[in-house]
């Protein structure tokens, strides 16, 4: 098992290198760079701007710049953000916890809804409960988060004035009060992301359960008289969760992508809004670093999916 994970991580290295080459090239070819503003700023003499460009090697060929970036990256130097005037890694580490907090809570909410609802609906297919769950899931699935996000803001912040609609990093107060505010401001983004996730997950859990519930070994389990709850949870769910867990792990990168939108709407100072603002301000080192972090997450969650799969299904052996 440990060997398998190690080998998978080694295999990931070349693909991550490949991804970084592509990312770097695309970003280098994109118009605009951090110094574009200097060139148009009348207060900066053109010689100074040119000297600065030369100093940072901005006019060197792409491959040279890439190798320079890679060498620095390997040594733990992620570059410097000219816009925020701080190191990129510090910047990312500053933003990451908020994103993880919001996305993590949203995923937990989604699981807490999807698993019981999906499983229960599958045990009573086409019942009233199932049909209501299906309809709600369909609606939740078809409404984009930017729409539900704005709707929530309109209802809960503007009309009812229950919840703040701007996420703040430095919450006032201490202790319980601080915790309360942290939770209060996260409610809407977590609901919006979580409900959207829950909708697609519920449909998936339900169909995975429906597939399993009619299988022979579930009948065998029922013939043992161990009770309906055990049959469903221990025998059917254990099996149905195999594809579900895998899908959830594989969807995680997309969830991070989706969080960018939510972070914009609720102005959450997370890694997604960092990406957007750096793109808008041509802060290339940050864009490069954030996209590369996303790429690493994709690889990481792929690995997690495989490991979970093997852990849940004894028929798979790690070799």
């Amino acid at each position, binding site marked *: 098992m440990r060997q398998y994970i190690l080998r998978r991580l080694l295999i990931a290295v070349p693909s991550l290198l490949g991804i970084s080459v592509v990312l770097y090239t695309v970003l280098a070819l994109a118009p605009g760079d951090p110094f574009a503003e200097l060139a148009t700023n009348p207060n900066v003499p053109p010689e100074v701007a040119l000297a600065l460009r030369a100093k940072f090697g901005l006019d060197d060929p792409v491959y040279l710049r890439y190798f320079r970036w890679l060498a620095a990256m390997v040594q733990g130097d992620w570059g410097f953000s000219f816009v925020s005037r701080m190191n990129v890694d510090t910047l990312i580490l500053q933003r990451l916890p908020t994103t993880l907090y919001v996305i993590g809570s949203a995923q937990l909410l989604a699981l807490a809804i999807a698993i019981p609802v999906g499983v229960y609906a599958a045990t009573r297919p086409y019942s009233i409960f199932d049909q209501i769950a299906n309809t709600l899931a369909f609606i939740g699935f078809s409404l984009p988060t930017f729409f539900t996000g704005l709707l929530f803001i309109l209802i809960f912040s503007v009309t009812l004035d229950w919840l703040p609609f701007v996420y703040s990093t430095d919450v006032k107060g201490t202790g319980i009060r601080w915790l309360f505010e942290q939770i209060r401001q996260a409610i809407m983004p977590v609901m919006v992301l979580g409900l959207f996730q829950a909708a697609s997950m519920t449909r998936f859990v339900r169909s995975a359960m429906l597939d399993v519930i*009619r*299988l*022979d*070994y579930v*009948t*065998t*389990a*029922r*013939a*043992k*008289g*161990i*009770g*309906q709850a*055990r049959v469903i949870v*221990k*025998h059917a769910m*254990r*099996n149905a969760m*195999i594809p579900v867990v895998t899908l959830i792990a594989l969807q995680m990168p997309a969830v991070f992508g989706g969080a960018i939108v939510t972070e914009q709407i609720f102005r959450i100072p997370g890694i997604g809004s960092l990406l957007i603002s750096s793109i808008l301000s041509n802060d290339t080192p940050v864009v490069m670093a954030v996209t590369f972090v996303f790429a690493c997450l994709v690889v990481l969650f792929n690995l997690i999916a495989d490991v979970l799969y093997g852990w*849940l*299904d*004894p*028929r798979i052996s790690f070799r």
Partner: protein
Amino acid sequence: MAPLLEIKGLKTHFATDDGMLRAVDGIDITLNKGETLCVVGESGCGKTVTAMSILKLIAMPPGRIVQGQILFEGRDLVPLASRELDDIRAKDIGFIFQEPMTSLNPVLSVGEQVAESLRRHEGLSNKDALARTVEMFKLVQIPNAEARVHDYPHQFSGGMRQRVMIAMALACKPKLVIADEPTTALDVTIQAQILDLLQDMKERFGMAVMLITHAMGVVAETAQRVVVMYAGKVVEEADVDSLFESPRHPYTQGLIRSIPRIDLDSAHKTRLEAIGGSVPILIDPAPGCRFAPRCRYAFGLCAEKEPALREIAPGHRMACHLGEKQGVTP
């Protein structure tokens, strides 16, 4: 002595897109304590549905027991809720299923799958249940039982899985074991081993066995009494000797003639007599005898009136119009 199991007028129907499928349409089966009863019939005649109805293991919906009684030790199981049946499942009635390859849960160890019913019905601790499971595995001759209880189903061959299923069905020492074609999916050599094992177990535990099969050879070897089913009905019922010596229903006769005879030398070997035609559709069946389209003796009355099961000799019952009026016996 009251019979162990008495099925009276059982009808189990399935709601399908094309209409009500009458999988089991009014059958009576009686099983005494310690008896081996074989239920035979072609594929699709309702054997599995009958067996599954006893413990309400059929999918409901679309399935439904629309009529009849299933008396187990005098108590009707039909009106019982699933929760109440749980006390009877595995404890009093054990089940061995047709497909060893799909009837075991792939993600649980085989030992756990046996042990869980011991914990439920005998109130054993984890440790004691495992010890009893090892004991059962030894009894059904699974080599290296202590280690193998921790293995998963995919690590077993079909024959070994069926041994696990037998251990599972017998673990709580039930009064009745229902074996639904326990050997159909296995190699011929393994088939004989599994049947022998079942026979051994029956002698050791003294339980009654309801053995479902479509192989007349299996019937001849194991049964004390035989019930022949056709298209959701019982067409003949007799002790095994009378059935093989004087089968009375045309369908039974066809079944018996279709057994390959190894005791005749090749010169005398008659051609295997298969029964022509196929099983009738069970949705809106035509009135009259359901076997009529395939019956070589069919006559006017057969298409009009359904023959009732009647006693023609002590302990020998059949459902056919022949011999009732004209005195013709097939």
